[in-house]
């Protein structure tokens, strides 16, 4: 069966920095995958490659078998790849409703977009703040609004870059529930640092280190692996 997204020997260099090294990554339809790695491992660059914000130096990105390696920045969004960026990227001067509505309206009529926006804001628990200006919201709320913006477009693939960063424990638990609920209809790739959060949502984890994939396994096996502990937590192997 054709994977939803697949990368083949993906490389990107910024001058002398080799940010992504021969990354081979495969994700099936409706799969949920977590990607971990220390700072500078190339996680955000990997997401930028998948969404056309950065062009690969070499290698291929295939979306449902179609090569999207050299697409214009707006084309992956049209194809069905949605992303919540590391720093919430919203229309700060617009209302919560308008942020989500613009996402829903691209492929839907005004009436359908209104309905989808209402349903989406209910899903992410932001309907009560529909008229609030996005730029004035607290960080956690901005994260949920951005998740709403992404899911309102109903993309088959959703990339979430640190969705639980800067959240309280209660907010993290709620975000985990939300992600599992989204995963019923969408494939997700989630970049996170919080291991407890990863345990809540992930069945399979990919570990990036210095731009390369070094391991793919269940969260528990990943956590127990001496090499991962050394790289990620600074522990020396016994």
């Amino acid at each position, binding site marked *: 069966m054709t994977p939803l997204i697949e990368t083949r020997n993906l490389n990107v260099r910024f001058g002398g920095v080799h940010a992504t090294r021969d990354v081979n990554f495969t994700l099936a339809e409706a799969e949920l995958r977590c990607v971990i790695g220390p700072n500078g491992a190339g996680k955000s660059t990997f997401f930028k490659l998948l969404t056309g914000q950065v062009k690969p130096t070499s290698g291929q990105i295939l979306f449902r078998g179609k090569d999207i390696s050299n697409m214009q920045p707006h084309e992956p969004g049209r194809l069905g790849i949605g992303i919540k960026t590391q720093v919430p990227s919203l229309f700060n001067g617009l209302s919560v409703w308008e942020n989500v509505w*613009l996402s829903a309206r691209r492929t839907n009529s005004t009436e359908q977009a209104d309905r989808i926006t209402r349903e989406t804001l209910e899903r992410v628990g932001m309907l009560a703040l529909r008229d609030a200006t996005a730029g004035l919201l607290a960080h956690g709320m901005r994260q949920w609004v951005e998740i709403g913006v992404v899911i309102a477009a109903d993309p088959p693939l959703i990339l979430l870059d640190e969705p639980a960063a800067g959240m309280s424990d209660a907010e993290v638990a709620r975000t985990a529930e939300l992600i599992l609920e989204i995963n019923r209809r969408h494939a997700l790739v989630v970049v996170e640092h919080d291991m407890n959060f990863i345990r809540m949502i992930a069945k399979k984890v990919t570990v990036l280190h210095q731009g390369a994939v070094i391991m793919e396994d269940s969260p528990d096996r990943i956590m127990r692996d001496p090499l991962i502990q050394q790289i990620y937590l600074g522990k020396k192997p016994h």
Partner: protein
Amino acid sequence: MNRFAKSWMSAALCLAIGTAMLFGLPSVMDDYTLIQVTIYAVMSILGVSLGFIWGFGGILCFGQAAFFGLGSYTYAIAVMNMGDSTVPFVLAILVPALFAAVIGYVIFYGRLSDVYMGVITLTVTLILFNLINSTAGPEWRIGSAPLGGFNGIPGIPTLNVPGRPDDVLSPKDLFDVTVVCLLVVYLGLRVLISSKIGRVIIAAKENEQRVLLLGYDARAYKLFCFTLGGAIAGLAGCLFANWGAFTSPTIFGLAQSAQIIIWVIVGGLGTLVGPIVGCALIQWLTTAIGTQQTFNSNLVLGAILLLFVLLVPRGIVPSLGSAGEWLFRKLRRPAAAVSPVASTAVLPPTEQAT
């Protein structure tokens, strides 16, 4: 009251004021004053063109005068060759629009930064100024229309009733046509801003990266916005040529371009009424200062710009709007407590109701 309702209430208010001016002013004003008000309306259309692309599209164009001048010259040359003004009127809108589309394509599809946008548009204006300025000889003519170089083109035939070249418009008719054009431009842009296209244009100004990630081609939306601004400026240029039956290269000049920016800043960026208010106010002030010898008008305009940038950075209309809302809330507060949700629903500094 939500933002959408407020927006349309203010549009209805502007339409009512415009209609009242259209029918009321000619009966209470002498011909000289009516002609003065006509030029205010012409320049207001020009101001709105920049107010739209800058305030809503986030495109700071230093060369809006280029499209204005092109509209003016296109009308003058075409009408002198054709006789009937109907096609020249349309050409005066289409030629600047096409010119804006070409420049915009290079800028937006070449992914040039905002700084280059300013540099390119300013340079194009100055090139046009120098080009037209150096066409003084009798050999410089297009058909039967001499370009006139720095002397400009005098004796431009006024708009006529379509298909009847001898039935030219009187100053009162020209006032009517100009005010109707201003109202149509205002309401047309109001409708556009409320549509999907308008909202994407505003969104691209807020966060172009997010617009791209949603799958919208931001370049196309910005190009449309810029081209429409060029078309509206061309319309203003056409009406300007009609107003004085004259056009000259000075309308391509740096002073003209700077003045449009001042109108928008003073009236209020991010509104459509702001540029109209700013234009009328500054035009009136310039005329008033011109009647005395004590102060140089450019010096006063510079001081006004500085004062507004420092003290009223949002401009007259948004500041008045905020003051009105504050007063409205203060008067309502005893009757109904403000909910925490409502208190967070603060209007953004841009895209306000006006």
